[in-house]
């Protein structure tokens, strides 16, 4: 919403400066988005009067002027033919930047005569292309008066942002009302007069669709002389970005901006029969004022005469019934259209207009007749003519709302600040509310132009925005405890720990979009219709991700393209198995690619990083599980990872048969090919939501007592020849079970396959640590345990001990 300062002052009697006005607008909720102040551009120019003009001694076309600048007289060398004694024009002193010649004036010597400034042409001020002579003003203004002020170029344009709850501020008078309440001046008396008119309006009005258009008023004015509107009107319209068309049309635009009251004018000679607001009919269409043709239907409110659709109610009139400079009879429409219906129609047709903008936010329903009177008055002023009586169909949907308010109490309750009833009443009255105070209570009648006000909280809002939130004292929130208590849930702690742990293992955290390409989603079990956006911004961002992995793989591809070939990325975040809240799950996903490991990436004199493989990411998973409170001795690793993993080089970490903790492994080359990612890539996804919640041990933080012995541990090595597909973990667990008391640890230190062993065999070597607890182990005891280990392993795996 735009208006000029002088326009505002038509309604507001104020001494406040532009800056004060703008600050008040911003604070009270009409945020100033821009100020275009032409006076700033012309600030340096003042009225200069030529006291004397003599020919230049050395140049025929130049004169030497003595100019009264209001601040003493100065000598100016001037080439303009119209420079003469007594002329008043725009003087620019030394130091002025003259935009039309892109130059900052300096003291100069022109053909030997000194010159201290310049008398300017309109072109030099960029006011017009006029450059035949200097500006020659007929003015009483004294020398030294700001030039912009004298020529009326000192009217700044203010642009404010209007929140959807403030349709009343879509008219300059409404804006003025806020400023009055904010204490910046007085509201001027409304110059509205009522014109009775002569004779009934020969054009009858009907409202056939009261839900869409409950009230419609109009009148005919005959004998008008339409033409260009006067300068003042054109200037104002131009200042707010509107193109002047003709006096009748300009009048409607002016009242729309002045009062937030849209109107429409029809060339009455082009109307056929009566006029009615009704629902559109399928198949109807009309040519709108924007030159486009629109098809209407029964959901839309149209204005029609006996023969055709003339326009869309509350949005835009038609080209064919519009007023032109030839119009001599005008029919003025002042109606009220339903906000929602107007909004829906506008959206359906993708048609925006100043009228729609106002009607969809809610035009004052009590302004139907007043608006018509304002228009009448303006038409008579601008175009003359003879008005008929007013014709009204339907009834304005007035709310006539009165709110009971315990003013002081409710203000204090919501703001914490004390404000007297008198002050509250004053603010509300200034805003146009009618207040009756009785005891502690107030009865507040809401003006019809405030459709956003419904109850006491809205009234408190009105008072507090005028009173100023900055004036409300800050109050500390009551402390719930001396020392703050921990608030994170176990899952929140795990998410945070997972991030730090993975970063601690050299992975770099990324945050990628929750939506990805559908082709990518379907490679990871996603891409269902239910989680496909109906209105994505691009096909690359249309599917809710089923997993974090595709987003990270796409990131790896981009990083590779920039020359980052060996690195590791991770993300901890949400993915979506479906569209329901319980389908959203949180996981930690990491991907290592190229030559990358815990020690670093790429080549190094101390040894190159190896190409990533499943064991790098298995280590990431196990380390993460440990740090998230899972006993990794209790997990199982199976080989049935999802099909985006390499089938032979991937695994699933489970806790019991049902709980899947993580998937890990090298990624399937086929899938990688489809995602255009090449080279060594291994990844994992750990499902944080699946981790069991540890049982609370009450409030105790006490650890169990430490049991240690000073006796020396004994280590014994064993090598077993087992089947190629025997899981190493079976050997480890069998060995562990041989003597649970003595065996402290079993460590696999070699795994070897070779032709010498036989094609379907491998050798697994383990180191068993025995920890005595009573006395040093005798050779005999050690031999006994060793035999048990061999027996247990051979029994469990069918393998044999190697000699």
């Amino acid at each position: 919403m735009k208006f000029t300062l002088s326009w505002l002052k038509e309604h507001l009697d104020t001494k406040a400066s532009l800056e004060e006005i703008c600050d008040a607008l911003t604070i009270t909720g009409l945020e100033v988005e821009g100020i275009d102040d032409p006076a700033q551009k012309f600030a340096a120019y003042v009225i200069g009067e030529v006291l004397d003009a003599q020919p230049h001694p050395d140049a025929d076309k130049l004169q030497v002027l003595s100019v009264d600048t209001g601040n003493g007289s100065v000598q100016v060398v001037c080439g303009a033919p119209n420079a003469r004694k007594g002329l008043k024009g725009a003087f620019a002193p030394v130091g002025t930047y003259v935009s039309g010649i892109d130059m900052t004036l300096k003291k100069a010597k022109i053909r030997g005569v000194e010159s201290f400034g310049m008398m300017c042409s309109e072109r030099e001020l960029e006011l017009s292309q006029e450059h035949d002579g200097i500006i020659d003003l007929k003015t009483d203004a004294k020398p030294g008066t700001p030039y912009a002020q004298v020529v009326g170029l000192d009217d700044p344009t203010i642009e404010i942002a209007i929140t959807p709850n403030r349709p009343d501020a879509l008219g300059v008078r409404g804006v003025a009302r806020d400023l009055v309440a904010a204490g910046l001046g007085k509201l001027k008396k409304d110059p509205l007069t009522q014109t009775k008119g002569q004779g009934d309006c020969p054009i009858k009005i009907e409202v056939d669709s009261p839900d869409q258009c409950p009230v419609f008023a109009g009148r005919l004015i005959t004998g008008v002389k339409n033409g260009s509107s006067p300068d003042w009107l054109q200037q104002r319209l131009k200042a707010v970005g509107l193109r002047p068309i003709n006096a009748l049309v300009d009048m409607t635009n002016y009242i729309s901006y002045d009062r937030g009251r849209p109107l429409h004018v029809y060339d009455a000679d082009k109307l056929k029969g009566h006029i009615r607001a009704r629902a559109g009919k399928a198949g109807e269409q009309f040519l709108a004022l924007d030159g486009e043709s629109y098809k209407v239907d029964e959901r839309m409110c149209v204005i029609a005469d006996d023969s055709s659709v003339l326009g869309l109610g509350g949005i835009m009139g038609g080209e064919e019934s519009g007023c032109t400079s030839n119009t001599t009879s005008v029919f003025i429409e002042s109606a009220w259209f339903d906000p929602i219906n107007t909004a829906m129609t506008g959206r359906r047709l993708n048609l925006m207009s100043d009228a729609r903008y106002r009607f969809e936010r809610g035009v004052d329903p009590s302004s139907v007749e007043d608006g018509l009177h304002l228009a009448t008055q303006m038409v008579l002023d601008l175009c003359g003519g003879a008005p008929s009586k007013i014709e009204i169909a339907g009834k304005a949907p007035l709310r006539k709302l009165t709110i009971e308010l315990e003013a002081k109490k409710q203000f204090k309750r919501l703001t914490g600040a004390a404000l007297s009833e008198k002050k509250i009443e004053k603010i509300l009255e200034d805003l146009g509310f009618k207040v009756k105070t009785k005891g502690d209570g107030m009865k507040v009648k809401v003006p019809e132009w405030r459709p956003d006000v419904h109850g006491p909280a809205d009234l408190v809002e009105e008072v507090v925005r005028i009173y100023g939130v900055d004036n409300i004292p800050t109050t500390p929130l009551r402390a719930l405890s001396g020392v703050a208590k921990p608030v994170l849930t176990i899952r929140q702690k795990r998410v945070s720990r997972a991030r730090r742990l993975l970063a601690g293992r050299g992975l770099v955290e990324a945050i990628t979009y929750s939506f990805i390409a559908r082709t990518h989603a379907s490679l990871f079990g996603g891409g269902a219709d239910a989680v496909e956006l109906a209105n994505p911004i691009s096909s690359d961002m249309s599917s809710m991700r089923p997993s974090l992995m595709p987003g990270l793989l796409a990131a790896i591809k981009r990083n590779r393209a920039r020359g980052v070939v060996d690195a590791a990325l991770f993300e901890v975040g949400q993915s979506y198995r479906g569209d329901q809240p319980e389908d959203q799950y949180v996981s930690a996903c990491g991907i290592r690619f190229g030559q990358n490991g815990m020690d670093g990436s790429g080549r190094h004199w101390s040894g190159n990083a190896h190409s990533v493989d499943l064991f790098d990411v298995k280590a990431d998973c196990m380390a993460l599980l440990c740090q998230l409170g899972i006993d990794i001795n209790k997990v199982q690793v199976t080989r049935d990872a999802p099909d985006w993993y390499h089938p032979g080089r991937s695994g699933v970490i489970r806790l019991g048969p049902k709980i899947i903790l993580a998937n890990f492994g090298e990624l399937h080359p086929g899938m990688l090919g489809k995602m255009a990612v090449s080279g060594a890539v291994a990844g994992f996804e750990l499902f944080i939501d699946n981790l069991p919640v540890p049982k609370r041990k009450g409030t105790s933080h006490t650890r169990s007592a430490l049991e240690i012995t000073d006796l020396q541990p004994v280590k014994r090595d064993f090598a077993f020849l087992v089947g190629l597909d025997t899981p190493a973990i079976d050997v480890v667990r069998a060995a562990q079970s041989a003597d649970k008391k003595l065996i402290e640890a079993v460590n696999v230190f070699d795994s070897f396959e070779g032709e010498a062993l036989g094609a379907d065999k491998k050798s697994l070597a383990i180191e068993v640590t025995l920890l005595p607890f009573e006395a040093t182990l005798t050779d005999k005891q050690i031999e006994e345990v060793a035999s048990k280990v061999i027996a247990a392993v051979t029994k469990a795996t069918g393998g044999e001990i190697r000699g």
Partner: protein
Amino acid sequence: MSEIKQLETQILAAIAASDDLTGLEDIRVSALGKKGSVSALMKGLGQLPPDERKSFGQQVNGVKQALNQALGDKKTALADIALAKRLASESADVTLPVRTGPLAEGRIHPISQVMDEINEIFADMGFDIAEGPDIEDDFHNFTALNIPAEHPARQEQDTFYFPKRADGSSLVLRTHTSPVQIRTMLSRKPPIRIIAPGRVYRIDSDQTHTPMFHQVEGLVIDEETHMGHLKWVLEEFLKAFFEVENVQMRFRANHFPFTEPSMEVDVRYKRVGNEVRIGEGDEWMEILGCGMVHPNVLKAVGYDPDQLQGFAFGVGIDRLAMLKYGAPDLREFFAADMRWLKHYGFGVLDVPTLAGGLGS
């Protein structure tokens, strides 16, 4: 007697002259071995008169002791020399660069870091951290928040929709974190103090807008909390977050359907190069929206607005990160460009705490 002394002097000289362990052992054997020169002296002991035997024996033992001492010292000295020689041959190029390990490589994303900072501050003021789903229904994202079906806000917020379901409704990607207010109020009893950080989605894309970004919602509901408290919480938060003594805030009346009164908050700032200094300068920058929870919202979750009241606020987390840490382009936050992540990311040990400071 001088014969003994002479022998001792002779052998000591030999020991001193010796320069390797083998030669030294030879000297030991030739002097103290079974057939050695000093041992031979003892053999003559029996032939001495008894009164001289004791002192002779003592003299020889003295020589033995002196020789053993000298041999031991020489052995240590030779070992030291040998070690020094070996070590000299083992010297390495200490300027060779080493790998600094995974802690130096890993990074935490600025948004995670800033979320941790925010959690730390609000936990201290007694706020829990609540969560909700990204895919929301109409009720939680709009209706319960006093945004009825035809409200222009539904258009203005540029909502991402999912396909229409059988009942004609569509799920949406939440346009704000405010639905977590609704979920929290429906599942808990007041008093409530929560923040709800998370992802939100709007159709928008330029240097300062991405179709996904992060917000943190704040909500306090009880019988007494008013706008004065709201101002205090925001002021304390901004001071703690930007780690400045003073934050000057300006409250502008505004409109959000779910709060009333509604306000936007500006902070005073100054731009120095690519640094934004909060609390200094003459410029105002919009930083968050807030207000008192609208009675219709309270009614929607079954609360009595005559009994309960409180405030809500919403802040852009990405924006806070941009302001504090000077990353200029929001799109880069989600591009997973390793160079950007390494530069703007945080080290593992940069854990924000109130005791140690939030900023890194």
